[in-house]
């Protein structure tokens, strides 16, 4: 690394965004300020083990420092396995997992979400399943099951109900996926 690069990588604290912590607390990360950065969560985190830049402890640290862009420009929060080792182990009941989820909620409100998440949400709205494989009917038949599972994919009325429920959630206000009422 050259000296210029090293200098450019230094975090400029005066550019921190102090509103980020409040946003996180409003979007499900209520216990954010209880964190004492003891790093017990980091010791248990698969993201840390796999070498991602931001794992539970560092996400919390970055949020407290207001480093909004650093978090939004990095894919780490979207790789969180939701495994909740951190929730289990945290001595301050911070629920670090919820803070990562809250950071995802911040990112979504700035349209900074991965394509796969958009596809998952669209699939959830269109079929009732985040993961849906159109060709799965054959595989299901092969093992002796009906083409469709007894879910929204086999029950059009249930799918309509789920879609109407989703239209009453924050997802509809965000405009990430098309959610027109059928026939309108």
């Amino acid at each position, binding site marked *: 690394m050259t000296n210029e690069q090293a200098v450019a990588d230094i975090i400029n604290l005066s550019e921190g965004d102090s509103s980020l912590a409040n946003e996180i607390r409003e*979007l499900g990360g209520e216990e954010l300020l209880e964190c004492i950065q003891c790093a017990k969560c980091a010791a248990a985190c*698969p*993201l840390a*083990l*796999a*070498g*991602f830049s931001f794992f539970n402890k560092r996400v919390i640290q970055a949020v407290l420092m207001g480093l909004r862009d650093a978090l939004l420009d990095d*894919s780490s929060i*979207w*790789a*969180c*396995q*939701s*495994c*909740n*080792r951190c*929730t*289990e182990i945290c001595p301050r009941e911070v629920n670090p*997992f919820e803070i990562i*989820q809250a950071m*995802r*909620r911040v990112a*979504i409100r700035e349209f900074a979400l*991965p394509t*796969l*998440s958009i596809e*998952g*949400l669209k699939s*959830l709205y269109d079929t*009732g*399943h*985040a*993961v*849906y*494989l159109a060709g*799965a009917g054959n*595989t*299901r038949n*092969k*093992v*002796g*099951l009906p083409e469709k*599972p*007894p*879910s*929204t994919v*086999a*029950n059009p*009325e*249930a*799918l309509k*109900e*789920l879609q*109407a*429920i989703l239209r*009453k*959630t*924050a*997802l509809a206000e*965000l405009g990430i996926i098309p959610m027109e009422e059928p026939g309108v």
Partner: protein
Amino acid sequence: MKVGFFVGCNTAFNRPDLEQAVRYAFPALGIELDNLEGQSCCPSWGTMPSVDVVGWCVVGARNHTIAEEKGLDIVTVCGSCYGSLAESKYKMDTHPEIKEQVNNILKDFGREYKGTSNVRLTFYYLYHELGPDKIKEAIKYKLDGLKVALQPGCHTLWPSKVYYDKEEDPFHPRVLKEMCEALGATVGHYTRLIDCCGMGAMRSTDMEKSLKLVERKLLSMKSEVNPDLIVTGCSSCLIQFDTAQELLRNSKKINFEIPVLHYMQVLALCLGADPEKVTGLAKTNVKPIIERIVG
């Protein structure tokens, strides 16, 4: 005994042989399955839980109410469904303001979340409702002599506060081990037993890092247990261990193959299920193992 079967996405569309294993094993043990007609996605972590707390809980609650109206608990074979449903229930049960907002949406659809159905994972349900001894009595075939390495799965263990069925110590899980021993398996311990397999959001975000985690687990299993079979407690772990080994062999990271099955598949085989129906979609070669079990 009757229970609602929450089938989820990956099991229904990627590994319906696992769905078939559950549909065989529960009735064979005298437990009727209800289809929970009209169920949807749990919802999975990258969707509504990443958008909004109430939006997450309301999709979960719609699923909970389908079981509540029938007076049934929910069983699932997928760790993510188990975690998401148990967490949405915990949130609504411990935060009246979340439950109220959810029920405000649901009332227009003639539904109300009450919190009366528990969320259970298949093998924990069988452990607590029947117990290993009854399972030992019910099986036709035994795993005698088969050496097994376990993959319990993250969502089967943490966060323990949201789960109805608990381990004494979730960092030293025992239930899956006892359930495998009931089938006659010898279960070996390895250092990375409770590590994450790397499936899920990590695999979608960074395949290389995800494979690194499963590689570490496989090498630990191989050198410390040298198992005949890997048994998972979660459908996502099943997919990761079953599909990652070929990729790791192609990149020369490992030079072996260990067959992989979910616990419910092994149980269904021991109860006399048609192997093609309950394991027919495995990518690892499970045929020699099946021959050893059913003879």
